[in-house]
């Protein structure tokens, strides 16, 4: 029976999942906004980060403790990937960036597969099944933490973009590459920082996901299409759009899973994605394309 309580629980569950989706999408939209290109390696980087968090846990480091160091490490990896591989290999052509990031994702995913096999792994924490009470509802503690962390990261990113020098440089390069160069900004450095920030967001997402989800080499694929959907829905390049879009998709997925069952619930996401692309490619919160 669909009681208001069940619906409310599904909505809250959707919001907490959606917040993590938003965290994954925010990196994607950031890179799109600056480089005007979709990073197809996004899901693979998430999978790599989840494996990193998984092995950190095997050595006794809790994912929430590993969060900050991993974010720093992945910032460095993302910076290097853009500066040393993606940038030089694509010769400044958008079509090439598509292929290079696709190639990178194939490499990362399959190296993970070769190293760790396709087994799904998960971790057992003492707090994995803990819940907190929210009025009549019970919310999973790790998911509530994920929600909080995602919101904090979203706001930090927003503040970074608006109030710091590097944030201003990123926005300048996004708007007018040539003009930014003329005032002394180094676009390749800015591209790489953007990529690094995006990878750091993924590392944080990986750490808040691990206590409640599993990890395998293909886990990124499941999230990346959702993230693409959110980015398109929220308007390519819009951070606020990605946050709102993430929450929205989380709720839609949770409700359609409740009403249609899991496998068809997934279909709902793809259909939203295709419809938005066909009908309103600028997204609902239409930042100008």
């Amino acid at each position: 029976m669909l009681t208001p309580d069940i619906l409310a629980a599904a909505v809250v569950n959707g919001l907490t999942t959606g917040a993590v989706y938003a965290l994954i999408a925010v990196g994607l939209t950031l890179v799109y906004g600056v480089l005007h290109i979709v990073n197809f390696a996004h899901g693979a980087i998430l999978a790599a980060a989840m494996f990193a968090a998984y092995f950190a846990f095997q050595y006794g480091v809790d994912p929430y403790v590993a969060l900050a160091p991993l974010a720093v490490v992945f910032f460095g990896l993302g910076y290097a990937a853009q500066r040393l591989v993606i940038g030089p290999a694509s010769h400044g052509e958008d079509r090439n960036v598509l292929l290079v990031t696709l190639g990178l994702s194939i490499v990362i995913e399959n190296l993970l597969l070769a190293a760790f096999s396709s087994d799904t792994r998960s971790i057992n924490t003492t707090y994995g099944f803990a819940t907190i009470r929210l009025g009549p509802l019970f919310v999973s503690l790790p998911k509530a933490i994920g929600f909080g962390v995602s919101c904090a990261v979203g706001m930090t990113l927003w503040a970074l973009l608006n109030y710091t020098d590097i944030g201003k440089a990123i926005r300048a390069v996004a708007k007018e590459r040539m003009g930014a160069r003329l005032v002394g900004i180094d676009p390749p450095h800015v591209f790489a920082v953007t990529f690094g920030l995006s990878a750091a967001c993924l590392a944080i997402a990986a750490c808040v996901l691990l206590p409640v989800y599993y990890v395998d080499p293909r886990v990124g694929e499941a999230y990346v299409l959702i993230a693409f959907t959110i980015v398109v829905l929220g308007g390519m390049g819009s951070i606020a759009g990605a946050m709102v879009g993430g929450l929205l998709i989380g709720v839609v997925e949770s409700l359609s899973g409740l009403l249609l069952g899991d496998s068809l619930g997934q279909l709902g996401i793809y259909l939203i994605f295709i419809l938005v692309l066909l009908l309103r490619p600028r997204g609902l919160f239409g930042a100008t394309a």
Partner: protein
Amino acid sequence: MRPYLSIVIVALALAALASLAHSNTLANSLVTATIIALAGYGWNLLGGYGGQYSFGHAAFFGAAAYVDAVAQARYGVNAYAAFVLATAAAALVGVVIGYLSFRAGLRGSYFALITLAFAEVMRVLANAAGITGGAAGTLIRLAPSPSHFQFVGRQPYLWIVLVLVTLAMIATRAVERSRFGAYLVAVRENEAAARALGVDALRVKLQAIVISAALTGLAGALYAQYFLFVDASIAFGPWISIEALAAPIVGGLGTVFGPLVGALALDGFGEAAHAVAGRTPGIELALYGALLVLVVAVARDGLQGLAVRFFAARRAGAA
């Protein structure tokens, strides 16, 4: 005749290779590589000549594979009729996806994304629907006789796919030399300029995606006919979308021999990787990905372009 002379020579070389492939393993490896080359010819027409990078050619490959298998297994359709039907179905899927995405003006990342999403939707549907056999897939009944388009041994399949690849090369050359081909390249280089000169870009791109889908569909139908089995992850999985684009890019984007050279080279690299690293899953595809990045980085015109430049340099050195 001259523009087609090189195709005749390559076809003869392939035929010689095929008649030497007595071992089943080698013949099998050649059949799968050339089926992928065929799918690559489809991708090359739209991506290489038309500049529209699809990340979801599995949609065409899989539609054909499923129609071929389901028509025979469920409706008792004659194998050759099913084969033709399957190719037509792929072309139809091409029309639908092409019309929807090109009319909405999707290009670059957006086109890559939407083709990927269409392929995924088809994968989820094929996995859930009853008519496709759901997650268990569809088996074509084993009946090895030419009247069922099934043969004992692998050699006959090798000859069939070689004939189809030769036809694909001829079709590619014909497109290259036609007015349509010139329009297509014009759209790739600068769509706005092409339109300003009176090229109907939507129409040109639609024609390209239909031919592209049909060629990749041929590969899908042949794949089903060869393995006599289809399921959702074989038909619509990301592997075939990747192979179909990796072959032409590694071999030489927008060239007549690129997809063939690329598919054979990737197959060779894959086998070499197996020999070195054993049958660890993932190694082969990881190598494909690395090659893809490497080719984009250092050899924009692929292996074929490298070879051409190498021989040109040698000739210049000798003179």
